């Protein structure tokens, strides 16, 4: 009995020693591998949205902010964001910053969202001039920022500041300037030659009316570069600049008419594009084809343009009134219907990319498993997720390794006037894999002459 007891005591002592040694070893190993305590799961994810709620760009900015809210409502309705390594989901909270359509306003909005509201990530930004003005703040505080509106390539190409936390989910002026010029060369030029009965080597006479900002000049540069690089048979017969926010375009349009163009490309915001095209047709008598940049593809533009949109072309990737056939149309219509149910109007493409921007932001945070900004930034670098409502190259949203830009599939729409509703409506006419109808020169079209 006593022997048994002594043996039992030994067993207990060894067991105690063994457990103590194990605990010490675990503590040492844990001490070596875990430098800091694990970050607690956040109660909510704060997403800052920078949009122009007031000022000249308020129409687009409001659309962006409302689209972000549609995305947030959908995400929260599904329980929130699933963080990697966590069993529970975390809701997101949107906080808006109004850039007031000005550089100073943008600076104020970005600083407040970062320092006062302490957002985890930023989405939004419209007008390259405004957005580039507060990029320094983004660089300084190293907050991941998904830019969904400003289209100048300088947003992520500039080298004077660290742009490594900035990701561009919006086609750049380089891209859509190139697409539009290619459309002119492949579709418009042959159509005009056919109408004239001219030989295929007749140079196409293109005029350009551009906003004198990084955005407008970016389009101008892209058109010039594409013509030169691809040796296209297109001549720029007139290039007229104007100040941002201008509403009287009659004189530059008179100069353009004097140059006898075959078509006029407007690198303008919607509040400039609609009056410019109206004045061109109504006041100047420019019976030619007008081409517009994608940001014009919104419901207000169609309303303002009325019958003067007939026959004109818009480069686009999301339209309130049309979509490419197939699954993409279903996804876009679902978003449009959700937006309409909530706001009573239709979203525009800056709204669409901002809607996607919220999903991209939450996906990156989910993949990162944390709101730590460096980790989230890396998650954005490594991101690869299926396209959402806009057609992406390869059907995937990812950011290029050099300038952190996502790549879109763009298309061209031609407008047809609908007498019943008193507005024009778009149909996709290019490229072939997306088009729903063929491009046609209007009967009233007058080609230019040398």
């Amino acid at each position, binding site marked *: 009995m006593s022997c048994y007891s002594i043996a039992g005591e030994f067993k207990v002592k060894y067991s105690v020693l063994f457990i103590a040694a194990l605990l010490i070893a675990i503590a040492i190993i844990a001490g070596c591998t875990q430098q800091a305590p694990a970050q607690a799961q956040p109660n909510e994810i704060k997403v800052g949205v920078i949009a122009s709620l007031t000022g000249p760009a308020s129409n687009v900015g409001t659309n962006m902010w409302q689209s972000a809210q549609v995305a947030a409502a959908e995400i929260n309705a599904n329980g929130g964001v699933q963080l990697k390594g966590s069993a529970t989901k975390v809701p997101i909270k949107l906080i808006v910053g109004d850039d007031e359509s000005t550089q100073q306003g943008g600076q104020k909005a970005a600083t407040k969202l970062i320092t006062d509201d302490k957002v985890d990530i930023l989405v939004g930004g419209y007008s390259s001039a405004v957005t580039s003005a507060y990029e320094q703040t983004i660089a300084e505080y190293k907050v991941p920022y998904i830019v969904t509106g400003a289209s100048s390539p300088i947003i992520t190409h500039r080298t004077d500041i660290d742009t490594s936390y900035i990701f561009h989910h919006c086609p750049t002026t380089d891209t859509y300037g190139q697409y539009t010029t290619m459309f002119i060369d492949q579709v418009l030029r042959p159509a005009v030659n056919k109408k004239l009965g001219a030989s295929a080597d007749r140079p196409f006479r293109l005029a350009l009316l551009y906003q*004198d900002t990084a955005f407008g000049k970016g389009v101008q540069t892209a058109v010039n570069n594409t013509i030169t690089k691809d040796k296209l048979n297109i001549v720029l017969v007139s290039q007229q600049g104007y100040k941002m926010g201008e509403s009287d375009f009659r*004189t530059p349009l*008179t100069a353009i008419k004097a140059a006898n163009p075959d078509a006029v490309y407007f690198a303008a915001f919607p509040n400039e594009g609609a009056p410019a095209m109206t004045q061109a047709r*109504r006041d100047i008598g420019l019976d030619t084809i007008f081409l517009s940049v994608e940001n014009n593809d919104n419901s207000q533009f169609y309303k*303002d343009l009325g019958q003067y949109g007939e026959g004109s072309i818009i480069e686009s990737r999301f339209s309130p009134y049309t979509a490419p056939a197939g699954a993409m149309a279903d996804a876009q219509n679902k978003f449009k219907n959700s937006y309409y149910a909530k706001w009573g109007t239709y979203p525009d493409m800056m709204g669409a990319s901002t809607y996607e921007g919220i999903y991209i932001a939450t996906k990156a945070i989910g993949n990162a498993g944390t709101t730590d900004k460096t980790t989230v930034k890396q998650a954005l670098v490594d991101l690869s997720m299926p396209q959402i409502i806009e057609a992406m190259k390869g059907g995937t949203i990812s950011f290029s390794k050099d300038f952190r830009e996502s790549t879109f599939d763009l298309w061209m729409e031609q407008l047809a006037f609908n007498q019943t509703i008193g507005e024009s409506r778009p149909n996709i006419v290019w490229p072939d894999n997306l088009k729903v109808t063929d491009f046609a020169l209007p009967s009233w079209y007058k080609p230019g002459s040398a």
Partner: protein
Amino acid sequence: MIVIEKAMVDIGILLQILFWGIYAGCIYILLATGLNLIFGVMKVVNFAHGEFLMIGAYITATVFFLTGINPYLIILISMLALVAIGAAVERLCFRPILGTGKLNEIFLSIGLIYIFQNATAMIWGDAWQSIKSPYEGITVPIGSLNVPLDYIIIMIVTAAILCVLYLFLKKTRTGREMRATSQNRKGAMLVGINVERMDILSFGIGCALAAAAGTLWVVSGQVFNPYMGSIPAIKAFAIIILGGLGSIPGAIVGGLIYGIAENGAAYFLGGVWKDAISFVILIVVLVVKPTGLFGESGE
């Protein structure tokens, strides 16, 4: 070289540019004349004057959307509404601070800019808007030009308003009292003119002229939003300095010069020079004649 080549353009194009310049000048003339009338009588610097143009534009559009009345007729409603608004602003805002220093007037008017802009955005929203004239699409041949009817009507309406203003100031007792107050406020008081009545009247008429400019702006198919008034107001100030402070003929000539110069610069030098050229002219005139084209020393 480019300028020389452009100078050799078709005379028809130059006439077209001149036509657009006169049209733009009409808007400037109405705005600057109203501003000058207020300055002439009250010696008040009102930076919020462009906001009255903006409110005139919104009143025109709202009445047009609600009633479908010809927008050229709405100009009377717009002007009457702004007489009332202007009188209220003078009575409630400017009169209490009159004579307390230019700085107070400047900050008061800057405050009014924000109040009017935000109030308009609250009532009508801040999206860009536009309306269509019932005469759009109708053109009239004038010599080698084929010009839209709307712009001819705008020029006629502007001329008619200026004629009525001239007759009012020259032929009516109230107009003469207003001119007397403008020339010598103390003297006017001594001869029994109610200068406070002249203040409220001139402010109301000045605002009504801005409203007329707003209506014509809208009818010509230009877009408008709550923030549209700031740039025209700055130009109106430049015009009255160019023409001579307090001088109605100066505002008319200055407005025409600005309209034509802006459009000429946009054609020959490029659109980015459109605003800058006005101030180049202003600097040149002030260097040569510091009182402005029609101004008198001591203003």
